[in-house]
């Protein structure tokens, strides 16, 4: 670890202008990343507050804490906030924004103004959605199924939908920016197959953003047209088909789950390599697995619709493709483990998050196979089994990866080190709390407890109480980093340029980096994750 003798660089992006204006109108990708960090953390808190309300309500079988009406609003906003305003932007807009130019040796993203615009679009989108909370809430579920959302719901569907529509453009523009940057802005010698896997993962993610999000946008336009003008594309009363809505929605929203997981997988690749001080095993396979997941991920959306009235033959095609998309994920998991083999595995905080990620993602992913199994999904769909599945991949997977990444790059971002012991403790608390919260939900789901229920039969209570208890442990785990990371901002040790002894261009500049990232344009002459010759005395 770094010694306290190193000093902060005299000038870096953080002290290059201290006025509020220099932050709010910055075009520096690193500062924009921090703007996102603040906003995204805020929306996580909002989403988490709703989660607290859900778990409190479900601690007892009767619907006693909230009215059914309010409960519906709460879980809807929980889903909307967590998916659209927290998890989808979390890794790309914060870490991707910060790191991609650094990792490929560029001075900035290709379109810095567009990057700032993306942030403000996100901000405006969130305002609309927040407005819908105060003006009557939203009670459609995050999936907006028609005709409920278009004809029956009396809640503020249009403002919320508009918020998500606007927010979508933020994602599109960020993705576009990344693609162009990765194609056109690489430093000399930074060939495609020398790119860090984090960059590959973001390339794949950006493809999904760019090709999927517009379909969500047009879907929202159609829903809004139906609500505002009374058009009837999804309304069976005039011959519209509500199932068409589901196709359009999931054409985006299934790939969107890979928008959420791929960047986290990219983080894990980086962290495994740095923790083991070793080249990622099967680099090319891991890189192409990302692209494979992104492409095949577009062919499976109908697995959300097995009981929706889609044709059984279409269901069959979607099912087999869903199974196939699991294979590249398996490849990644195995390669990460192989990377640890004969490594020099650090026991610092990031590695703890990596271990948590691998375990929880394995469970989450494998339970995805239960759902891709049509005969079984008939029983499982719309039960708590689904809720458990997606929290395992999204919370156990993505958030673990995200937090791991934040801990790993924190010294690069801020120039200071947090308390590593607290970091490891928080990882363990989150891991334990997480399993306690969501494992019982698999059981209660197979028992048949439907999701989006505000009251439930009594025999499910014990498992639900366990889940609520777990959520409070989880809350502690999530609040811990908030405090010690904030504390480190002022009191943390000075980290030095490369506290983890990792390779990668981002570690070849100061911490925090200067405004244009590098003093001179770097020229890359080494392979990805190439560690210098082995240090003698290392036993394997």
């Amino acid at each position, binding site marked *: 670890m770094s010694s306290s003798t190193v000093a902060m660089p005299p000038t870096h992006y953080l002290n290059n202008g201290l006025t509020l204006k220099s932050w709010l109108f910055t075009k520096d990708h690193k500062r924009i990343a921090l703007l996102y960090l603040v906003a995204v953390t805020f929306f996580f808190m909002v989403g988490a507050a709703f989660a607290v309300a859900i778990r409190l309500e479900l601690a007892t079988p009767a619907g006693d804490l909230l009215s059914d009406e309010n409960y519906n609003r709460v879980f809807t906003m929980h889903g909307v906030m967590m998916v659209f305003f927290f998890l989808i932007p979390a890794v790309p807009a914060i870490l991707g924004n910060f790191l991609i130019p650094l990792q490929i040796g560029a001075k900035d993203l290709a379109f810095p103004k567009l990057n700032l615009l993306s942030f403000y679009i996100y901000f405006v989108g969130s305002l609309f959605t927040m407005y819908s909370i105060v003006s009557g809430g939203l009670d459609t579920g995050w999936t907006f199924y028609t005709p409920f959302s278009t004809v029956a719901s009396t809640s503020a569907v249009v403002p919320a939908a508009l918020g998500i529509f606007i927010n979508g453009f933020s994602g599109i523009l960020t993705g576009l920016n990344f693609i162009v940057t990765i*194609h*056109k802005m690489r430093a000399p010698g930074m060939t495609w197959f020398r790119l860090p896997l984090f960059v590959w993962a973001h390339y794949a993610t950006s493809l999904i953003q760019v*090709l999927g999000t517009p*379909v969500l946008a047009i879907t929202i336009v159609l829903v809004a047209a139906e609500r505002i003008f009374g058009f009837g594309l999804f309304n069976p009363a005039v011959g519209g088909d509500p*199932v*068409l809505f589901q*196709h359009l929605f999931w*054409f985006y929203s299934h790939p969107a789950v890979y928008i959420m997981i791929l960047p986290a997988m990219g983080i894990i690749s980086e962290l495994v390599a740095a923790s083991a001080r070793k080249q990622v095993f099967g680099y090319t396979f891991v890189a192409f697995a990302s692209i494979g997941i992104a492409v095949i991920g*577009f*062919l499976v*959306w*109908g697995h959300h619709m097995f009981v929706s*009235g*889609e*044709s*059984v*033959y*279409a269901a069959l*095609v*979607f099912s087999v493709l869903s199974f196939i998309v699991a294979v590249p994920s398996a490849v990644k998991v195995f390669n990460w483990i192989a990377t640890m083999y004969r490594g020099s595995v650090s026991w610092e905080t990031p590695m703890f998050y990596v271990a948590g990620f691998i375990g929880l993602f394995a469970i989450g992913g494998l339970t995805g196979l239960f759902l891709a199994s049509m005969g079984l999904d008939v029983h499982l769909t719309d039960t708590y089994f689904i809720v458990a599945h997606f929290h395992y991949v999204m919370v156990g997977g993505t958030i673990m990866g995200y937090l791991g990444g934040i801990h790993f790059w924190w010294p690069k971002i801020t120039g200071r080190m947090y308390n590593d012991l607290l970091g490891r403790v928080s990882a363990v608390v989150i891991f334990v709390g997480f399993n306690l919260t969501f494992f019982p939900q698999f059981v209660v789901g197979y028992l048949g407890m439907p999701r989006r229920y505000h009251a439930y039969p009594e025999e499910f209570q014990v498992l639900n109480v366990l889940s609520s208890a777990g959520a409070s442990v989880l809350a502690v785990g999530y609040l811990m980093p908030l405090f010690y990371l904030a504390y480190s901002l002022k009191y943390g040790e000075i980290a030095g340029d490369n506290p983890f002894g990792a390779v990668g261009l981002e570690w070849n500049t100061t911490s925090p980096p200067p405004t244009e990232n590098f003093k001179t344009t770097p020229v890359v002459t080494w392979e990805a994750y190439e560690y210098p010759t082995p240090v003698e005395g290392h036993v394997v």
Partner: protein
Amino acid sequence: MADHSQHHIVPKSTYYLIFTALMLGTGLTWWIATIDLGAMNNVIMLSIAVTKATLVILFFMHVKYSPKLTGTVIIGAVFWLLIMLVMTMNDYFTRDWLHFG
């Protein structure tokens, strides 16, 4: 990263030629619409539309003279659109196959 898009200047005559083809295509489509060719009506009209679009893309939008990457982007986008159309239609076309089972 030498690239031709900014250096290659398409002669004006090409533009006029393409323009004429587009206008003719429009007229042709209209005429086809008024005669009865059964199912072929739609096929022909859409083929003309696709041809017109291709002409615009290749010449007005300079893709013929642009890096391969540009073509890849277009083909990719159209391919993704086809994914959406084909896999959704697959549902709509086979919805009542169950009755024969």
